[in-house]
């Protein structure tokens, strides 16, 4: 029961913030993808930097749980390509379509239904596709901390992400702070 309440609370907070960030608005997302407004990509990249610093703090305090997902050269890359096609077409991703459907955006409700269909089809083919596409090039749960340790790895990541936020601001054109 605690898990459900924590999940609900976390979801409400997450859904509210991504709505305020404009990430549930497919018009905003299209302008981000078309490099006309850098606000959403800057927000996403900066959010990762803030989270990474926070997680480093949690690790130091011995709080929380981590789970690094494996990298499969083929499956992670091919999955990302398929995902990117759907994201560019619709302007929604799996998280934003729940929040946008909650807002009452009808096109997001169709994205959510399409998502349930896509999940069902993949789950049906899991036993066939995973051994062919995922397993052969699975490199395991690689992380920058394997080479640099958590503190140096996080520092390096935050510097790269900070540079990305700065570059997006220049390349996408001026956007408000």
């Amino acid at each position, binding site marked *: 029961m605690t898990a459900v309440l924590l999940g609900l609370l976390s979801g409400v907070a997450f859904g509210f913030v991504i709505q305020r*960030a404009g990430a549930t*608005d497919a018009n905003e997302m299209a302008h981000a993808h078309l490099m006309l407004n850098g606000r959403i990509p800057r927000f996403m990249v900066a959010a990762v930097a803030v989270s990474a610093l926070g997680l480093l703090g949690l690790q130091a305090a011995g709080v929380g749980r981590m789970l690094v997902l494996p990298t499969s050269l083929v499956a992670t890359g091919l999955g990302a390509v398929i*995902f990117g096609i759907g994201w560019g077409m619709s302007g929604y991703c799996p998280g934003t379509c729940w*929040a946008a459907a909650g807002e009452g955006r*009808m096109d997001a409700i*169709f994205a959510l239904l399409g998502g349930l269909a896509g999940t069902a089809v993949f789950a049906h083919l899991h036993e066939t596709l995973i051994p062919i596409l995922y397993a052969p090039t699975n490199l395991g749960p690689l992380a920058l901390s394997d080479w640099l340790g958590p503190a140096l790895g996080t520092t390096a990541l935050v510097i790269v992400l900070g540079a990305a936020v700065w570059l997006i601001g220049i390349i996408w054109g001026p956007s408000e702070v």
Partner: protein
Amino acid sequence: MAELEKRERYWSWLSSAAALGGVIVFIFATFGPPASSSGFVTTLKGFLSLAAPDYAEGKEHYALMPGVGSWLMAFVIGMAMGGWLGGRTWRVPVKDVPEIWERRFGPGRARRYATTFAGGFLILFGARLAGGCTLGLFISGSTQLAVSGLYFGVVIFAVAMLVARLVYRDTGRGVIS
């Protein structure tokens, strides 16, 4: 005037990133890495455990995920509630068809809904193949310095930006988002 309107549409990237980073760190502390495409699997698993229990039990993709009553499912339902709360308390009107789509293809709903259904299908199929989505793989993964998250993030942005150009061509140019 146009600049002012643009500024006021949503929160700035910096405030949004600080708020979302805070939510993500809270989730790492109280649950573990957040994910949203997994919520599609748990939702379907809940439905199938009523409609076709034998099928759901025999498929590995459902066996790997918790079902109804899990944090993951509560999280996506919470996200819809958070989106609802956000949309009801915000000045930007909620639309069924985004403005940029309407300028490119006209106000017809059928075409937009068919596209977001197909897009939703692809984002979930791709996410389940890769092992996660924008949140579960890119944001959660990169926060933990995972190579899989950074790899996935770079590819989804690149492909979505390319596809958005094919879909919208130069529709967004010269218009304030």
